[in-house]
């Protein structure tokens, strides 16, 4: 044996082989759709980061425009509507004789004069319009992106993590472990989803962290089932047996050998769940169980838009939907590209 194994210095200097991720990155780079969607997702993440640091849309709560100010490009129609709503500024009846407070008006007037008040000129139009309080819809959408994407991605990550780990344990070990986990799964799926979410929400209360926890803890069941099926299939494959024969530990076999081979299931589920959790957050916020009242998310925007639509104020709905559509589409395309890049079997078609 030793005669065979003497390392020759010439070959010892060679670089180590590419890892799976290095190779995947090279493949991803050649995927045009994947790179574009990665850029869009990256731009959103940058926007979120800037929003979180307060550099962008930090003033979303300021009422900088007239209530329901229209977008700049529909200004004219809105002006006509605003003209009808002008309120007369002075009363034309003199009530000072009968007004018991009249003698003190002057004193109060002097007191008020001590304070400097600046009357901010409310803008009549904004680039994408304003909501019923006159807040900038664009700023709200940006700030809302921070909350919505944060909630959607984090909850999906949590659900995928729980589903993958439990599915791996159940599928790999089977037997009593599998039976026990199947029981938990059955309990979770036997309760209607929305009811389960409400039950968790009632316990956890409002707030971003609670929404993440609620969605993550209730949404793992579908992923669990798919991952479990894949693990059952793979755990008897010969390559796993071969790994056992060379002495690889149970954990290594589960997560180093099998998991990369079934990761496409988890990744696709992750992208689907990000989308569905963003929608779930909308429902929760709409019902008052979602993010706090002092926060804004695409969900709260859509909830507000309901009432506005009746009055013909469509811009808040349009902006929130556009943000959501662009992000969700880009995210789905990106996870598709990622899955293709991580699958060596597809190599050669590039």
């Amino acid at each position, binding site marked *: *044996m030793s005669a*065979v*194994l*003497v*390392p*020759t210095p010439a*070959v*010892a200097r*060679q670089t*180590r*082989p*590419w*890892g*799976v991720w290095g*190779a995947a990155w090279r493949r991803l780079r050649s995927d045009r759709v994947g790179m574009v969607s990665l850029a869009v997702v990256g731009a959103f993440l940058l926007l979120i980061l800037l929003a979180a640091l307060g550099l962008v849309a930090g003033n979303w709560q300021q009422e900088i425009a007239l209530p329901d100010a229209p977008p700049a490009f529909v200004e004219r129609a809105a002006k006509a509507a605003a003209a009808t709503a002008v309120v007369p500024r002075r009363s034309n009846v003199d009530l000072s004789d009968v007004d018991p407070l009249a003698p003190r008006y002057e004193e109060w007037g002097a007191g008020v004069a001590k304070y400097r008040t600046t009357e901010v000129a409310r803008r009549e139009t904004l680039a994408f319009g304003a909501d019923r309080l006159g807040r900038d819809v664009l700023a709200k959408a940006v700030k809302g992106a921070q909350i919505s994407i944060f909630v959607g991605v984090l909850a999906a990550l949590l659900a995928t993590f729980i589903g993958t780990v439990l599915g791996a344990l159940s599928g790999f070990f089977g*037997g009593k472990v599998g039976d026990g986990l199947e029981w938990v799964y059955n309990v979770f799926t036997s309760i209607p989803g929305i009811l389960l979410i409400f039950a968790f929400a009632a316990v956890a209360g409002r707030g971003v962290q609670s929404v993440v926890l609620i969605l993550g803890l209730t949404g793992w069941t579908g992923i669990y089932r798919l991952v479990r099926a894949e693990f059952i299939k793979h755990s008897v*494959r*010969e*390559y796993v*047996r*071969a*790994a*056992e*024969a*060379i*002495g*690889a*530990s149970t954990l*290594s076999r589960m997560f180093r*050998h099998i998991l*990369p*081979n079934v990761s496409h299931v988890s990744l696709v589920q992750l992208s689907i769940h990000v989308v569905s959790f963003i929608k779930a957050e909308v429902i929760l916020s709409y019902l008052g169980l979602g993010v706090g009242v002092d926060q804004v998310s695409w969900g709260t925007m859509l909830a507000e838009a309901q009432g506005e639509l009746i009055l013909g104020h469509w811009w808040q709905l349009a902006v929130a939907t556009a943000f959501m559509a662009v992000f969700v589409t880009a995210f789905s395309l990106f996870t598709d590209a990622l899955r293709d890049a991580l699958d*060596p*079997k597809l*190599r*050669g078609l590039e």
Partner: protein
Amino acid sequence: MLLRIEDLRVAFRLGMQRGEMQRVPAVGSAQQGVSFEIPENGTVALVGESGSGKSVTAMAILNLLPENAERSGRVEFLGRDLLTATRPQLQALRGRDIACVFQDPMTSLNPVFSVGRQLCEPLRRHLGLGRREALRRAEALLAEVGMPEPKRRLAAYPHELSGGQQQRVMIAMALACEPKLLIADEPTTALDVTIQRQILELLAGLKARRRMSMLFISHDLGVVGEIADHVVVMRQGTVREQGPVARIFTAPQDAYTQALLACRPTLEQRGARLAVIDDHIAGVEATKTAPIKDPGAPVVIAARALTKSFWLRRGVFGRSEFKAVGRSGEGVSFELRRGHTLGVVGESGSGKTTMGLALLRLHEPSGGPAGGEVLFDGQDLLRLSREDWQPVRRRIQIVFQNPYASLNPRFSIGQTLVEPMAIHGIGRDGTERAARARAILLRVGLDADGALAKYPHEFSGGQRQRIAIARCLTLQPEVLVLDEAVSALDVSVQAQVLNLLKDLQDELGLAYVFISHDLAVVRFMADEVLVMKDGDVVEQAGVAEILEHPRQDYTRRLLSAIPRGYAPGSGVAA
């Protein structure tokens, strides 16, 4: 002439690239297409290794190819050109005038329909028979293909039948409309050797009785020699040689045909190494003399009354024991010396693989108990604790049958080879392990620098099996269990891998447990042979003794079922 194929070329479109359609030729070269003829009441065999285009040629006749195939040339069936025939015209021919039998009967039969229903379909569609009449015909057909209790089998579903019976149903379906031509695409490859013999006899008998023609596709020259009248040898999409079976087998003209005939291990002769196709073409002779093995070499592994059972679930809580090895209670006993090979032979379901895996404790402990003892280095492997087992595990390794399934598709070859060394702490660091991996890859005959960064799917079957062997070698094992390690490989590649295994054995003193259904390969490799049947050892003796003076009926049956190629005056049809 029933069928005349002239200058046939098939290419597959692979999609546009830089504005140009990419095509891969599968059959026919730029200079020459494939041409041959099938006479009435004659059997023509297409022989070749995988990728030789033999199946594509046959499927091109009825256009059973995928959408992206492009055919050119001429396929004339009873004077009509099938390449220009419309889809309805072809559909009228399929099943009625030209019928097909495929390799894997399990996947060719629809699992949700009963056998009778599937048999009646072509009868009712092509012959317009009524329900009752079709059933009667179906029963007669099943009786004709030798199915026991045909009436009862009509109601059976495919999974209730054995592999051989399923293939009989497929043949009955193909015969249903009395075709003039039967295309049989590797009809016996998925079957055991004794079942293969039965199916071959059935096909030959049917052909003679019904006066039909047959296009028989096979990679196995032994089978072809027995059944064909005319042989067409294909390689890489072109016809290398064609002629009557007697001439092909006794006086082959083409170097490739000669090499194919030479590199197959036979029962009669036993050299030290097999001829390899490229060597044979180049004129290099295979070594004939084997180094003499030391009969007094130390025993590395010994089994005593080894049994293995599985639990079968019964009801909610109950379970019963199913003895997969050692059914009659005796179990398997053997001694394997350093540098020697123990051959384990048997048909599918005989428990040979279960026995091999039990040696390595690769069954789940909760799956069922193992009995007896396996002695390795004075320790009983079956009773070692987990901690004591890990260092011993390194010294016993296994190579699996399917090289496509036994390598992790997500691991590069470098990772695959470095991992076992990292687990067992062989080599100081990553660099040293990578260097060892390179050295071992070179030893098994692969280009080390190119291979390390690649993934398994970039290699051919033979190369993958070399990688699987290399993975075992990284651990410097003393015993290798080879579980049908060459069964999935082409003849020429099989010869190379078998030679490699012999070289490694001579060089490193490895002991092999060589599990195979192929007696010829076992004869080439083994020193001692265990013949297994239904979980029991039927016969156990030296290789020459087993093959020349078999004592048991079962061993004799196995031996006589092996296709022996062409022998004048013999053959199944005779």
